[in-house]
């Protein structure tokens, strides 16, 4: 067990340091696990993320560590993702998935042998898929949580927690017990996975409302992040803008604001790096491009085309321009240049900020982890180049985590941040709109019912206790912000609606079963094995 206030030596700045860069990777997927089906397309979200993001990121971090490159990265790994990392069924199915990919890539190497522009990427995929399998099976023994934990224990990562199921907290604010359950369940889950308690939290969707910090403080959390406007609209005005944390007014919890400039360079589809014409195109996938007879064993078994992960083209350009084949060497060269450009801009930014601040600034640059590898295929390599350049090619900026910065600068201004999120519009617009607003009537009703039973049954045991714990799981799963988000985006809507309704229906049935003294143990058994997130669940968290 490590100290909560563990600070690694490598975070100590030199005299030439002008500022600090806090890279934050938010790793999240909703809990998708379907033992009732041999194949469920939505489980591919997890398998794709493992192959394209989480294993490549671990590999980058491990290589940096092996090469003695000093670095400090902040990562939030959400409880549902942790649960999926540790789930035996999903482990087995990922093994099946990566084997199929290797088989497909082998066929592709043969098929493209007379077309060098495609055989090169085909060979690359064969190598990368085989490497992922080797990492997953042999190096990490299918234990992703331990792999990340070891990087935290060695001082390279600061892993923070998130809401238990990524529930969007501003829509729960009138039921503090519901918010508390999201936070405390997450902290408990983190502690079991990481063998220490978390210091910080990534609020789901950066969703903050004034007063939330009281619950975060109760849970022992010291810091969280919000979007730029949440800090700039704070009362009073923050003295350092977003370049230093502020402490919340209602509880001593630090809040870090997102830097616009570094966000724009990576996130912006127009001006951001991932849209460069030399990078790999996400959408041209052989799952869509090749004959169905050939590709059928590698897509949805009922014959629906899906992404296989094998994509042979570069982005090329806008409009109807014919796509050019992907060239890995050119893409890597570009990633290297982009890493240099990003570092140069941060250096200049830090130099200027430090000239007008009486302390070194902290530049907070948060991203969805899946941007790196899944959406932006070259993202992990960009990160690798960036970290090495920061370590060896300049002295102005230094990688740092929020804990490090608070250790260095424990005194900070006290403000009340503003209600905000990092979604489109900056508030609740994404999760509260005509497409998805119907869910809140139901979520709020079952939240009330859960609190009612948690209060009524103080010392439940046996089957009643199991039922109450499963009610808590169903409620938490229904609250996931992913369902409302998917309803808004317009794709996979039926799945999101079905998941929301199923969890609500399961909850209501269990509620009535207790009410009318007719608990069905077979149903409890089924739900416990199906929605098996948080085996340690204790319904008292809703009291």
């Amino acid at each position, binding site marked *: 067990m490590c100290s909560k206030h563990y600070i690694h030596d490598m975070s100590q700045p030199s005299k030439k340091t002008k500022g600090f860069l806090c890279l934050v990777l938010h790793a999240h997927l909703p809990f998708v696990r379907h033992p009732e089906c041999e194949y469920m397309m939505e489980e591919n979200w997890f398998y794709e993320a493992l192959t394209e993001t989480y294993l490549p990121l671990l590999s980058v971090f491990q290589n940096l560590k092996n090469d003695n490159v000093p670095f400090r990265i902040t990562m939030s790994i959400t409880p549902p993702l942790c649960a999926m990392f540790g789930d035996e069924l999903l482990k087995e199915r990922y093994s099946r998935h990566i084997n199929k990919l290797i088989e497909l890539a082998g066929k592709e190497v043969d098929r493209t042998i007379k077309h060098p522009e495609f055989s090169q990427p085909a060979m690359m995929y064969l190598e990368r898929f085989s490497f992922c399998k080797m990492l997953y099976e042999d190096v990490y023994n299918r234990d992703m949580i331990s792999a990340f934990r070891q990087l935290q224990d060695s001082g390279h990562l600061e892993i923070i927690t998130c809401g238990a199921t990524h529930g969007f907290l501003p829509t729960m604010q009138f039921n503090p017990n519901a918010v508390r359950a999201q936070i405390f369940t997450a902290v408990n889950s983190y502690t079991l996975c990481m063998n220490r308690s978390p210091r910080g939290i990534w609020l789901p969707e950066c969703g903050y409302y004034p007063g939330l910090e009281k619950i975060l403080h109760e849970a022992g959390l010291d810091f969280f992040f919000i979007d730029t406007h949440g800090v700039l609209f704070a009362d009073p005005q923050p003295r350092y803008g977003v370049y230093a944390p502020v402490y919340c007014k209602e509880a001593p919890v630090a809040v870090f604001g997102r830097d*616009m400039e570094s966000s724009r360079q990576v996130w912006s589809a127009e001006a951001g790096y991932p849209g460069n014409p030399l990078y790999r195109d996400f*959408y*041209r*996938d052989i799952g869509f491009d090749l004959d169905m007879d050939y590709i059928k064993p590698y897509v949805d078994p009922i014959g*629906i085309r899906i992404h296989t992960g094998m994509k042979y083209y570069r982005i090329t350009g806008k409009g109807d321009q014919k796509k050019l084949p992907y060239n890995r060497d050119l893409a890597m060269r570009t990633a290297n240049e982009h890493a240099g450009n990003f570092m140069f801009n941060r250096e200049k930014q830090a130099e200027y900020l430090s000239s007008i601040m009486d302390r070194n600034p902290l530049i907070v640059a948060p991203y969805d982890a899946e941007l790196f590898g899944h959406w932006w295929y070259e993202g992990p390599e960009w990160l690798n180049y960036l970290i090495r350049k920061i370590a060896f090619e300049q002295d102005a900026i230094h990688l740092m985590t929020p804990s490090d910065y608070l250790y260095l600068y424990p005194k900070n201004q006290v403000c009340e941040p503003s209600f905000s999120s990092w979604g489109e*519009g900056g508030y609740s617009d994404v999760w509260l709109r005509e497409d998805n607003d119907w869910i809140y009537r139901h979520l709020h009703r079952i939240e009330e019912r859960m609190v009612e039973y948690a209060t009524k049954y103080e010392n439940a045991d046996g089957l009643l206790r199991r039922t109450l714990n499963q009610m808590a799981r169903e409620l938490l799963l229904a609250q996931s912000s992913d369902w409302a988000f998917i309803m808004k*985006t317009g794709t996979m*809507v039926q799945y999101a609606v079905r998941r929301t309704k199923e969890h609500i229906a399961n909850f209501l049935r269990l509620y009535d079963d207790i009410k009318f003294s007719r608990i069905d143990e077979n149903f409890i058994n089924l739900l416990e094995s199906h929605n098996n997130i948080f085996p340690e669940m204790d319904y008292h968290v809703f009291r």
Partner: protein
Amino acid sequence: MRKKIRNKGIPGKRAETETGRPSERAPDRQTEKEHQESRSASVNDNRIKPHYTFSSDIPDMYNETYICALPRNPDWLYVYWEISPATIQQLKNRLGEHYTDPQSLLRLVQLEKSGDSIPSKSRHVSADIINIATDSESWYIKVPETGRKYIVEYGQLIDKEYIPICRTKPVDIPASSLNEPTNENIPDPAVDLMLISAGLIHKGTVKRKTAPASHDRTALIVKQLNQNRMNSGLIK
């Protein structure tokens, strides 16, 4: 000012942007269309038969009386409610033959900043009456002033008499504007830091002499932040 929910429009709807969160980025159009169709199709069509299924039947309503308002953004709040048959019956019992042709109303009450729950005349600043369809269950309300606290009350107009039935907890609508600094003579560096934070100047390439004058800067910062938020290239 007010907009009905479950109508053809979406309250406060903005043009959907093509950029932003990576999953929403403008893709190659043809392949993205195929991509979406395939994903939808796989949900709509028969999947491989599962070994078991769960019910997804949930009630439309709960036979309870409640009302809840949620802040959506600095301009809008969302309110939903349910009036139980028992509540209606109580009204009927109370009003007898006068209970005819009830008209549903929402009353938006702006509280004083210090106000918290009681919408008595001495504690609220203003109130607007919103006519709604009797069978409606939710509504989006454009608030008259940002940075304020509101409650919403559901009531019925019966025989020219307004009868309140239920009211929400106070809901805080964010201000979407800069607050006053702790020190009125805000030092120049702090002004720069706000401007840089808002994305108005970058890494010192624009020097102080070209930075906006103090009386303009609050408006400029707020405008830039709003633009940043609307430009989905900066969202996530």
